[in-house]
């Protein structure tokens, strides 16, 4: 059963009516003009004080009684097979409580990158664990390796994989296989290849018709997540049941993984606790091998074990954003319409081939698209989802093509984008970004002086209304206490705060009056923090639970006071009757006969909504020294849309975080592999350069408050989208400043000087 109703959707002062089907039991979304006391205000995040005073307990801080310490032995070789492992000495060392090996636990006798797990030890102190790990003797069959995408793609390159795994695999369009990992279905493949050829021809024809045709080859680096809290767990068993404190962005994911009867841990019941997590950025969905080993060491030792990665392990083995090599071609009609677009791209996710795609064919209307994508195996630590997986690298290339396309038909870059964009929100954002960055201000640009300035633009897109599968519990106690509970984690985005805000709004209470509980799988089911869907999944359930709890409380009041229920409401700490406060919230609770009103509500399905995607435009201004090649980002304007803004300050923080990480991606961050030894050269935060406060540009955030109407809170997630456009905008700005295109990030002084050296011979405009 669903209820059909008319809602208003839109933003600014332009709203339209939309007929939507509200799922049974749900309440209609916030509407423009609704009297809201909390929602839309910049409440200080609930955990701010705990975090800055150090009372917040992260996984690292957990110290169950009798805690001992786990440590992993990792492969020093980039490609090897394990012939045998002798753990007898380690086991004999005093203070060692448990020893495990990868071949035993994961049935994997390969070590395909320097840093691969080989064995693990738990001991009474970190020093003993460290000593024990050194005593393990491993007999390796050492094989040749490739640690860069170019090495791996070269003719006769050493094989990264095993068996029939080729170094390079076409991942899109994907080849049909007879079974998973099996042989390619030759017939299906032949017709696929024929279709691909057709597509190529169609696009070629359109290129021939185009006024401007531009081509470019772009490269992006491997970026590690580098969360301040490393990966790891503290595990404590009670018989067959496991209590796992985990640094996690998916508490329920950890629970499933460690409790799965098919997995190596197979705990009967798993409780995961993660009240605070020091960053995940997409790398903490799975407990990972470190989590599994931590749990198993604890079981074998019969004592709680802490297994947290050190910084070097974090940088080499806990995930990264894959690199990319993207060859693009674009055909543009005289009026600026993009007619056709070709993509050939490669990326390496480590020893596998999946998950290294680059989203370089989205956002704009790109005409006919001919895209083929490959995954490349290398003997490097594996990729994990990284804040907007695939997008920053794809958009870095796409947005440069957009600039080049604009130039090919003599259009202003922003005008050109508008011409190929029909997003209902983004089209309203361009001019704001343009004005705020001072796009049309005169600048010394194009390499005309020692120090030049330039501006660049890029866009982003996201799809994050959230979805079903989440429940929130609200409890109203007779003494007036209110609890709001969900078992998912708050990875720093402010989930705890917004969940409390929407529930408190319904109950007419200030935020400080509700207690929020998050990050414990004993509480109701919540989402993994992925795809920026957390807020969109949790808040509608929290709001609904708050609403239902309100109704239940008002029913009590109505019955006991003999007031007609339809005159009653809750606002500003009081029961209101026809709008006037008549009874304090606490006094109302006193009227309850039971001790507690307990409400558990589910996230209902999404409705049609205003837009399925949320949008953003960013402009960057840079300063470049054309003699030293140094680049400084002066300012970034980020116009962003997060649907209905629950808490503008938290939303703004997400944008600032994304932009900072994006600037670091554009200029600094880079995993460096040593091709002789096959190891990561900079597995620490001294040599792996994250953007620091001093280098952070001025960031001006412009937030759109969009009544999106996809759920009862109308919200769209904002964790990932802000990082998508930044590096691209910076790169375009650098090109504007020096008059020649930089096709590779990070943009280092060497690359700037090389580009300037190339100037004149190659302006990135070919085939015109």
């Amino acid at each position, binding site marked *: 059963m669903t209820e059909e109703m008319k809602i208003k959707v839109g933003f600014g002062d332009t709203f339209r009516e939309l007929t939507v089907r509200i799922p049974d039991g749900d309440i209609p979304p916030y509407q423009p003009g609704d009297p809201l006391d909390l929602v839309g205000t910049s409440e200080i995040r609930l955990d701010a004080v705990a975090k800055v005073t150090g009372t917040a307990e992260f996984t690292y801080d957990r110290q169950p009684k009798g805690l001992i310490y786990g440590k992993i032995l990792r492969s*020093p070789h980039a490609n090897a097979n394990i012939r045998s492992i002798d753990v007898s000495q380690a086991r004999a060392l005093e203070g060692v409580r448990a020893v495990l090996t990868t071949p035993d636990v994961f049935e994997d006798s390969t070590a395909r990158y*320097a840093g691969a797990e080989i064995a693990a030890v738990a001991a009474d102190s*970190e*020093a003993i664990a*460290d000593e024990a790990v050194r005593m393990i003797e491993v007999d390796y069959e050492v094989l040749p390796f490739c640690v860069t995408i170019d090495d791996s793609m070269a003719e006769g390159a050493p094989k990264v994989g095993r068996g029939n795994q080729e170094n390079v695999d076409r991942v899109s369009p994907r080849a049909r296989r007879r079974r998973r990992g099996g042989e390619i279905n030759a017939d299906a493949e032949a017709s696929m290849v024929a279709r691909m050829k057709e597509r190529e021809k169609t696009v070629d024809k359109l290129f021939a018709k185009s006024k401007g045709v531009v081509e470019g080859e772009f490269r992006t680096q491997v970026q590690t997540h580098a969360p301040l809290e490393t990966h790891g767990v503290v595990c404590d068993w009670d018989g067959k049941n496991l209590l796992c404190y985990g640094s996690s962005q998916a508490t329920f994911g950890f629970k499933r993984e460690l409790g799965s009867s098919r997995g190596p841990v197979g705990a009967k019941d798993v409780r995961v606790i993660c009240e605070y997590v020091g960053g995940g950025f997409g790398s903490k969905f799975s407990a990972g091998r470190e989590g599994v080993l931590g749990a198993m060491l604890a079981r074998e030792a019969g004592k709680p074990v802490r297994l947290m990665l*050190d*910084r*070097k392990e974090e940088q080499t083995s806990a995930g990264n954003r894959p690199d990319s090599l993207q060859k693009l071609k674009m055909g543009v009609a005289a009026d600026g319409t993009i007619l056709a677009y070709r993509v050939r791209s490669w990326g390496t996710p480590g020893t596998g081939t999946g998950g290294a795609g680059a989203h370089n064919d989205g956002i704009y209307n790109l005409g006919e698209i001919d895209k083929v994508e490959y995954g490349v195996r290398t003997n490097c630590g594996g990729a994990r989802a990284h804040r907007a997986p695939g997008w920053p690298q794809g958009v870095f290339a796409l947005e440069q093509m957009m600039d080049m396309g604009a130039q090919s038909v003599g259009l202003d870059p922003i005008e050109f984008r508008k011409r190929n964009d029909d997003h209902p929100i983004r089209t309203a954002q361009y001019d704001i970004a343009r004005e705020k960055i001072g796009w049309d201000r005169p600048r010394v640009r194009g390499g005309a*002086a*020692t*120090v030049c300035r330039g501006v660049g633009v890029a866009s982003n897109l996201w799809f994050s209304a959230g979805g079903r599968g989440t429940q929130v519990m609200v409890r109203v106690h007779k003494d007036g206490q209110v609890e709001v509970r969900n078992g998912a984690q708050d990875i720093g985005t402010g989930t705890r705060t917004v969940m409390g805000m929407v529930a408190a709004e319904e109950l007419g209470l200030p935020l400080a009056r509700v207690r929020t509980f998050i990050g414990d799988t004993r509480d109701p089911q919540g989402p993994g923090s992925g795809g920026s869907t957390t807020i969109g999944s949790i808040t509608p359930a929290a709001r609904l639970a708050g609403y239902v709890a309100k109704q239940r409380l008002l029913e009590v009041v109505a019955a006991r006071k003999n007031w007609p229920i339809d005159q009653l409401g809750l606002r500003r700490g009081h029961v209101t009757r026809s709008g006037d406060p008549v009874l304090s919230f606490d006094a109302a609770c006193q009227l309850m006969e039971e001790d507690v009103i307990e409400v558990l509500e589910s996230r209902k399905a999404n409705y049609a909504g205003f837009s399925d995607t949320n949008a953003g435009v960013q402009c960057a201004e840079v*300063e*470049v*020294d054309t*003699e*030293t*090649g*140094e680049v*400084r980002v002066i300012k970034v304007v980020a116009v962003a849309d997060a649907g209905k803004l629950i808490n503008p300050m938290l939303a703004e923080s997400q944008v600032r975080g994304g932009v900072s990480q994006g600037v670091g991606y554009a200029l*600094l961050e880079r995993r460096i592999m040593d091709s002789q*030894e096959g*190891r990561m*050269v900079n*597995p*620490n935060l*001294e*040599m792996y*350069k994250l*953007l*620091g*406060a*001093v*280098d952070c540009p001025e960031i001006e955030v412009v937030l759109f408050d969009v009544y999106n109407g996809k759920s009862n809170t109308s919200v769209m997630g904002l964790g990932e989208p802000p990082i998508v456009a930044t590096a691209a905008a910076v790169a375009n700005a650098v090109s504007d400043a020096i008059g020649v295109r930089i096709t590779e990030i990070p943009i*280092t*002084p*060497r690359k700037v*000087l090389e580009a300037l050296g190339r100037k004149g011979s190659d302006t990135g405009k070919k085939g015109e």
Partner: protein
Amino acid sequence: MLRLPVFGFYQPSTIEEATRLLAENPASTRLVAGGTDLWPNMKRRHQVAETVISLRGIAELTGIRETSDGGLAIGATTTLAAIASDLRVGESYRALATAVNSISSPLVRNSGTIGGNLCLDTRCTYYNQNEEWRRSIDYCMKEVGEICWVAPSSPRCWAVSSGDSVPILCAWGAEITLVSKDGARTLPLAELFRDDGIDYLSKRPDEILTEVRLPAPSGERAAFWKLRRRGSIDFGVLSVAAVGWCGGETTDRIEIWLGSVGSTPVRCDESIAALIGKPIDEDTIAEAAALARKGEGASPLGNTDFLPQWRGKMIEHYVAAVLREMAGLPRERLAPRHQR
């Protein structure tokens, strides 16, 4: 990351007591001041010690005072933050404050000291890694290994002298005092350093650096620039300091020093010679800057951040920038962030 190993720890309250303790077994004893270099190095097992003597309990080692000849004496354990915020330093030795302020972050400057900065261990990409990383390449010459990974055929270690206060203090002609159980000696700061990545100080293991002294100001102008990847935290890959004394139109005396370009601070002899007796202007600056790379010991190798070729090229640009700033000419260069 390993934890600190077990060692004996003393915190004497007089220099005399400290030198006596140190003399007992100088080879296996280490001094610590702020510990911002020593503790991480001990955790990573670059440096080992049976005994560590802290200098922080010795009151007379800390603080800044004016000397009888109108100069400034800075106690060895004076923190970098105290120096950067000292009014006399700000007034008469501003470029020193700039240099000190360019070191790491406020937190490190609050505990790091000037003595520790002058005695800072030399640095190298193959050396400043954790123990496990180094072990897997069998270490290098600076430790127990056989070869130098940066220059495999070289008989010596090229680890980089990285203390950022060094070039500017050398340029100012600072003097230091070293004290041991057997007495004190005074020497120009520049003589503290040796062109060897392993044995980089001429200080004997039984000596404590107690003080660094700056000469009285006499109308000189000075400037300091530091090149690095980010505007804070990062060590320099080049630092340039210049102090010039011009009585009239022309330069009477000038000192130009480079840091982080080799195992020792480098004096740009030829640049200096090219400027003496001449006015400082666009032309003489360009000429002097072009000669800066010839300074003996200026040999950027592949053991810091950035490519050595680029670092080499930057010497000229940065020397020019520093001299321009000294001469009051317009900047025309993207300035390091610590400049503000």
